[in-house]
């Protein structure tokens, strides 16, 4: 009898244990990606009917299949693109070509609260001589690199109009710093990075007296100068270290774009230029206009910098101060062997170093060739001391001594990028095409064709500027995709009035030879993007939410003013009022803030949420305040309560079912004395 009871208890426990092994996720949604039957063979009846109804060719269908992403599936690559005049940066997925985000950089942007209570200090760093400059002509983003490969940590971008450089942290995709170049009013040849992001390169463009000074145009040759600036990057702090940065004074040749040497050519920097003629324009005075004057000569000058010598010279203090910024003078650069020139045909736009660092590709936009320079030949020519000098005494290496090859690619060649199959791709502005051509040297084994020859062209629509390939300026390009960044769209999209969007065209470059396929057109309707870079998505590791509650994105640390739930309060000290507020679905706390006209208000607000995507907005009407508070984020902002009245602050992100109820009253009582005066 006892035995039977014992067995019964054992059985019962076994049943309990097995019940508790219930499936843990019986209703988990099926993963959206892959797993299904491989699509193969011919189109099914439905698909064929759709293709016929929409007049899709077999090429259209393959293009669609190569770019379509089912819901929930992520892109393989991410593009960081200049936002052009918007002053911002675009984040785009490849191959879907979907706009993922616009990162506020130089220009206020209400969705992110940028300039409306958040990021105001960063925007102020970009003030020019105390003047608020709140737009920018963003040109060339540069991803941070480790051993000449994108590391996914930071991205930099320059503002051509005002010679500024911004630092964006890719942990939260937010701008952390803007530096204004003290030497030059404007720039162009930035940003590019050295192999381990030791320096961010910012080259100049239109020559002017350095230090934002005045000089008449008649003094052009003597007083106008170009520059290249090397911003030291402090990776640990995630900031440009302005105290360890410097510039080099250059002849007034209108330097244009730069690239850093890599591997064998590490430590050397190359910049092209396009007005070695030193034309000064004046079409209204009967002088040749710039477009003609700057195009008279058959060649301009590629600039070759020995960065190691430049850094040594800077560290030795052999610099002059311009606006308290160290500048290596042109004469010092010559004397120390920092700067060399070599001719390049003709009015080129860009110089690009091949993935192995052995060759430099320059495209003279008024010459149908790309000219390829050998780094080895440049070095041996410099070592042999074979050079002439220009009017300023800068050594000029003979083109024949340093040239490796030239390849006729088509009309209006501009920029070049590379793939993993030994091909280079050059944008052809006048042809509205991209040329694929073969590299020589160690690349010759990678492709079936002869080295240094044109392989094929693909038409793009229209007037291409820059182009980019997947990780195409690193030591290990991925190939696969190329994007043509077209200036004109003309008939590619529905007409939306005379100001047309730009056209980013995705092109499949995975096959060798003549097979390149146009896949997708993406309209860009916010500015004229210039350059962009494409990084493998899995190299990025951004935060899902801020690491801790009370995170100050500017410091990348918990703010000393963090407000925890239960610690909300309003503190008055004279007419200084401090508000300590939390935001959580679906209320702000406190919901009443009662102050007086004339108070100076410092408002601390913490989003205490930890859930992915639980962002709250916070706006105060009439006071030009709107914040985006991502989960965990803390923001402190200030304002003068100079307008009495009743203001409903509210959440501007639809955060929850009770989002509309997420509001509160800011009640500003009129100043007693002014009320007296009114009577």
């Amino acid at each position, binding site marked *: 009898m006892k035995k039977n009871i014992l067995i019964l208890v*054992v059985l019962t426990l076994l049943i309990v244990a097995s019940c508790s092994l219930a499936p843990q996720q019986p209703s988990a949604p099926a993963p959206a990606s892959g797993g299904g039957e491989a699509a193969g063979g011919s189109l099914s009846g439905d698909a064929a009917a759709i293709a016929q109804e929409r007049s899709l060719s077999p090429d259209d269908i393959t293009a669609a299949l190569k770019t379509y992403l089912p819901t929930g599936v992520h892109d393989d690559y991410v593009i960081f693109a200049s936002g052009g005049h918007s002053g911002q940066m675009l984040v785009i997925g490849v191959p879907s070509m979907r706009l993922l985000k616009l990162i506020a950089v130089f220009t206020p942007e209400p969705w992110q609260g940028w300039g409306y209570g958040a990021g105001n200090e960063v925007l102020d760093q970009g003030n020019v001589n105390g003047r608020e400059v709140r737009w920018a002509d963003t040109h060339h983003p540069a991803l941070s690199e480790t051993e000449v490969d994108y590391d996914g940590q930071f991205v930099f971008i320059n503002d051509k109009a005002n010679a500024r450089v911004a630092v964006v942290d890719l942990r939260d995709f937010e701008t952390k710093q803007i530096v204004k170049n003290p030497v030059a009013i404007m720039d162009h040849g930035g940003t590019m990075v050295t192999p381990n992001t030791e320096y961010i390169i910012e080259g100049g463009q239109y020559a002017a007296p350095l230090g934002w000074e005045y000089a008449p145009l008649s003094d052009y040759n003597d007083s106008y100068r170009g520059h290249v600036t090397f911003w030291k990057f402090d990776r640990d702090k995630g900031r440009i270290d302005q105290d360890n940065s410097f510039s080099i004074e250059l002849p007034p040749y209108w330097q244009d774009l730069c690239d850093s040497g890599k591997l064998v050519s590490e430590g050397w920097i190359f910049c092209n230029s396009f007005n070695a003629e030193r034309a000064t324009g004046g079409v209204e005075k009967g002088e040749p206009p710039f477009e003609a004057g700057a195009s008279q000569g058959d060649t301009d000058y590629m600039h070759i910098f020995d960065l190691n010598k430049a850094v040594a010279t800077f560290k030795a203090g052999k610099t002059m101060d311009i606006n308290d910024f160290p500048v290596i003078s042109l004469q010092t650069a010559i004397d120390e062997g920092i700067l060399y020139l070599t001719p390049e045909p003709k009015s080129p736009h860009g110089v690009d170093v091949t993935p192995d660092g052995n060759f430099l590709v320059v495209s003279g936009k008024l010459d149908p060739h790309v000219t390829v320079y050998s780094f080895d030949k440049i070095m041996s020519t410099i070592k042999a001391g074979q050079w002439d000098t220009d009017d300023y005494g800068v050594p000029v290496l003979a083109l024949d001594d340093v040239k490796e090859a030239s390849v006729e690619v088509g009309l209006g060649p501009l920029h070049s990028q590379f793939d993993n199959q030994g091909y280079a791709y050059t944008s052809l502005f006048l042809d509205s095409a991209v040329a694929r051509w073969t590299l020589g040297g160690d690349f010759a084994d990678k492709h079936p064709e002869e080295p240094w020859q044109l392989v094929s062209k693909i038409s793009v629509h229209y007037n291409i500027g820059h182009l980019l390939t997947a990780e195409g300026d690193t030591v290990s390009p991925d190939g696969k995709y190329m994007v043509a960044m077209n200036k004109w769209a003309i008939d590619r999209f529905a007409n939306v009035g005379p100001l047309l969007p730009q056209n980013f065209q995705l092109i499949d470059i995975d096959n060798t030879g003549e097979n390149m396929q146009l896949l997708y057109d993406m309209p860009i309707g916010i500015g004229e993007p210039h350059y962009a870079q494409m990084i493998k998505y899995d190299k990025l590791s951004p935060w899902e939410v801020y690491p801790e509650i009370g995170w100050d994105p500017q410091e990348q640390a918990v703010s000393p003013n963090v407000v925890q739930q239960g610690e909300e309060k309003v503190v008055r000290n004279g007419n200084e009022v401090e508000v300590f507020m939390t935001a959580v679905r679906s209320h702000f706390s406190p919901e009443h803030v009662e102050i007086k006209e004339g108070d100076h208000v410092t408002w601390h607000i913490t989003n205490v949420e930890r859930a992915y995507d639980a962002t709250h907005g916070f706006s105060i009407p009439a006071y030009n305040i709107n914040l985006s508070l991502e989960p965990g984020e803390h923001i402190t902002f200030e304002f003068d309560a100079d307008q009495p009245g009743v203001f409903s602050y509210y959440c501007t992100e639809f955060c929850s079912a009770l989002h509309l109820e997420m509001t509160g009253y800011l009640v500003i009582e009129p100043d007693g004395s002014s009320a007296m005066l009114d009577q």
Partner: protein
Amino acid sequence: MIMMTSDKLQQIIGPRAPAEELAARRMRYMWPTLCMVGAAILIIISIFMPYWSLILHAPQYPKGLTVYAYVNHMEGDVAEIDGLNHYIGMRPLNEAAKFEKAISIFSIIALALLVLAAVFIHSPWSTLLTLPAVFLPPVFLADLFYWLNNFGQNLDPHAALSNAVKPFTPTILGEGIIGQFKTVAYADVGLLMASTASILILVGLYLQRRAYKPLVEQMNQPNQKETSSEQESANDE
């Protein structure tokens, strides 16, 4: 009087197996010990494992929200679940079972020590020492049910969604539905270990009784002289 107490104590502690008997049939006396020690170890380890877990599935939480209940604390998306619960007026999860959580570690270690003590008690009294540990899993579940029910039934009537979500009793094991959430509750590793320990204890008790019952009867009837082996074979039937 002292003699009597001593006798009583002797009865509770039970007989020791004679040396020659131990040498001859070592495993017969070893198995109960192994079962009890194994159970005690499982119980101790279970302190560091979640006993019960709850996954909430809703469209806007593709990865689900999970709360792991340990004997003395909770982990997982507790803050988020509390945040959601405030809409229906449920109190924060950490306010539940404060007393139980406070004494849990101490109590469970005590349970395990009692099981270890039972190794040395060869009389039926050993059953009494191990019973608390045997009933740990059902007691845990009962207490969990009490608190789930208490929290589910006592919702703040002034909460935002109190019209939409009426007081309810959450599902303790298996699937349930609250608002847009599908809930899946299951016993987790800690509770499975404690349950396994319970089974081990019962098996150990059975083996212990099988081994020592003849000796106990021998002790109680010292005049009868029967071979233990005969006694045992009778017992086994």
